[in-house]
């Protein structure tokens, strides 16, 4: 149920305050150490951030998409790795369960996901299956006598895998193509499941991705999410929502970068006056602001459409494309406005520049978004 305005405002205000007072001072440390302090993660759990999108009856606060976007934008004002610590729990790691789980499965897992007791992860990408998600090779073979599926294969670049207690795994139960893929809830402690060391990445230090390997992992039949062959469909619906959430984070990050740019340009003096008085600097700020406002409007509109129950596959793809490309340009301009300081780590701008680069790649590359937009537009005739 949508919140009244007072409650919503207070909720966003609280998240913004937490971001400003607790998270922003830690950005440099998290960037250097590649680790978010556990006490901060515990505070995020107490705040209720891990249950934003889990329905109230399962212990979350069940925000609407429009409300979730408000939180995503507020969280976007700090390093994206911070949000990532609960990002899988409220997004790709839980929404399959929310959308396609049986009541029993929901009762069993969702309350502990909402509280943050369980960390979740979404395992779709493989060494040979990324954008072509329908081609996953991880196999799930039914052993009817034992009442289990036996999983074999490898997943790659799995966010939060090193901390995850529960994986949503896409594995092939049928023939070739998307219709042969099913979705499974796989607890980490099952024998045969192993997680590799986390990768060294370009940015977003503090958020980890790892390989996950399945070697004859026996997953109980009751852990299958939806019917056999429905996995891909579930994954695509989960990704629709995830794309919108990420778009909100992109807008928040751009807003933060614009604030930083304005602050620096107003103080930095050259030729005897602040560089903000030069038109070429102003143009970079103006373009960033206008593009950010446009992206924000699109994110909010698409979120409202989703809340109204409209089909949003095209809208989500367009929103993610616009928002992620926008924040890329804004971060590039921020480095330019900062000049030499933009290239120096202490100022944090180069870190943001590296961090936001991922937004154009994960949860569907810009190329995939464009092909979805083209496909849907050609289908409807314009």
């Amino acid at each position, binding site marked *: 149920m949508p*919140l*009244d305005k*007072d*409650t919503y405002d*207070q*909720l966003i*205000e*609280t*998240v913004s*305050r*937490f971001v*400003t007072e607790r998270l922003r001072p830690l950005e440099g440390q998290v960037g250097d150490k590649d680790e978010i302090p556990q006490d901060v993660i515990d*505070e995020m759990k*107490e*705040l*209720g*951030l891990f*249950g*934003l999108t889990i329905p109230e009856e399962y212990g979350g*606060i069940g925000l609407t998409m429009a409300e979730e976007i408000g939180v995503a934008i507020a969280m976007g004002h700090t390093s994206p790795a911070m949000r990532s610590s609960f990002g899988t729990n409220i997004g790709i790691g839980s929404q399959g369960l929310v959308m396609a789980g049986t009541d029993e499965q929901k009762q069993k897992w969702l309350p502990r996901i909402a509280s943050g007791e369980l960390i979740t992860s979404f395992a779709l990408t493989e060494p040979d299956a990324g954008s072509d998600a329908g081609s996953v090779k991880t196999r799930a073979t039914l052993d009817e006598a034992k009442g289990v599926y036996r999983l074999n294969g490898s997943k790659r670049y799995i966010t939060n895998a090193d901390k995850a207690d529960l994986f949503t795994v896409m594995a092939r139960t049928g023939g070739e193509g998307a219709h042969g893929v099913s979705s499974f809830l796989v607890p980490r402690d099952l024998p045969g499941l192993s997680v590799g060391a986390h990768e060294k990445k370009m940015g977003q230090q503090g958020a980890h991705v790892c390989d996950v390997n399945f070697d004859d992992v026996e997953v109980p039949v009751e852990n299958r999410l939806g019917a056999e062959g429905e996995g891909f469909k579930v994954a695509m619906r989960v990704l629709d929502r995830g794309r919108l959430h990420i778009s909100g984070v992109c807008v928040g990050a751009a807003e933060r970068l614009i604030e930083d740019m304005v602050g620096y340009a107003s103080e930095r003096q050259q030729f005897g006056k602040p560089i903000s008085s030069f038109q070429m600097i102003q143009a970079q700020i103006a373009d960033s602001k206008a593009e950010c406002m446009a992206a924000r409007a699109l994110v909010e509109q698409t979120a409202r459409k989703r809340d109204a129950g409209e089909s949003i596959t095209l809208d989500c793809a367009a929103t993610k494309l616009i928002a992620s490309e926008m924040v890329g340009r804004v971060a590039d301009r921020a480095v330019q406005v900062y000049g030499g300081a933009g290239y120096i780590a202490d100022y944090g701008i180069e870190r943001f520049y590296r961090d936001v680069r991922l937004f154009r790649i994960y949860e569907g590359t810009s190329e995939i978004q464009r092909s979805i937009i083209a496909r849907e537009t050609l289908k409807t005739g314009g």
Partner: protein
Amino acid sequence: MKALVPVKRVIDYNVKPRVKSDGSGVDLANVKMSMNPFDEISVEEAIRLKEAGKIEEIIAVSVGPAKAQETLRTALAMGADRAILIETDETVEPLAVAKLLQKVAEEEQPGLIILGKQAIDDDANQTGQMLAALMDRPQGTFANTVELDSDSVTVKREIDGGLETVKLQLPAIITTDLRLNEPRYASLPNIMKAKKKPLDTKTPADYGVNIAPRLTTTNVSEPPVRQAGEKVEDVDALVTKLKALGIA
């Protein structure tokens, strides 16, 4: 035992206040407002006492405009049980607030009244002391530590020379200092639940208190702009300079 926690809606501590051009006061139009930080410490202390099983009910009270409801909702979201808004758009001075709080205390009979030591807008640092005098009850101001027993409360006070410990018979008045605790963030589920907690609205007239101001503000001005510093060559030059300025 009940705890009464007065909270004030003030200009947010992150906002740089601007003085109105006619010097009549601080410009509050479209300025972000939030709970006085010392009052947050009071609410937090009351909640901790409740969590320790020493207090049964926390009542937050605010004197101010209708918008002060938001401040009370924050207190409810943090963990207060119910709230009372004494609504007025007038400027209410510390003595009038103390008189109103006295009336609320007579109705509610709290064992403990925990106030912030001062509000960050007018920095008066008077309400708690005035309330104690009006009620003729003991006061422990500038609290650094609070230990509550069934009939008394021990308060460590921050004073210039260090910490002073006082033991007060209940009911008592406490004003909180900065280091008493670190207030929690209201959790998002509790923010949603706060809407369902009771919030009564009253007026100063309901309590028969005359809130007419006794002071007139003649002028408000910005602090003087800091002058540029000066670099000196060495320590000797510094000492000479300081002596010339009459500092050393």
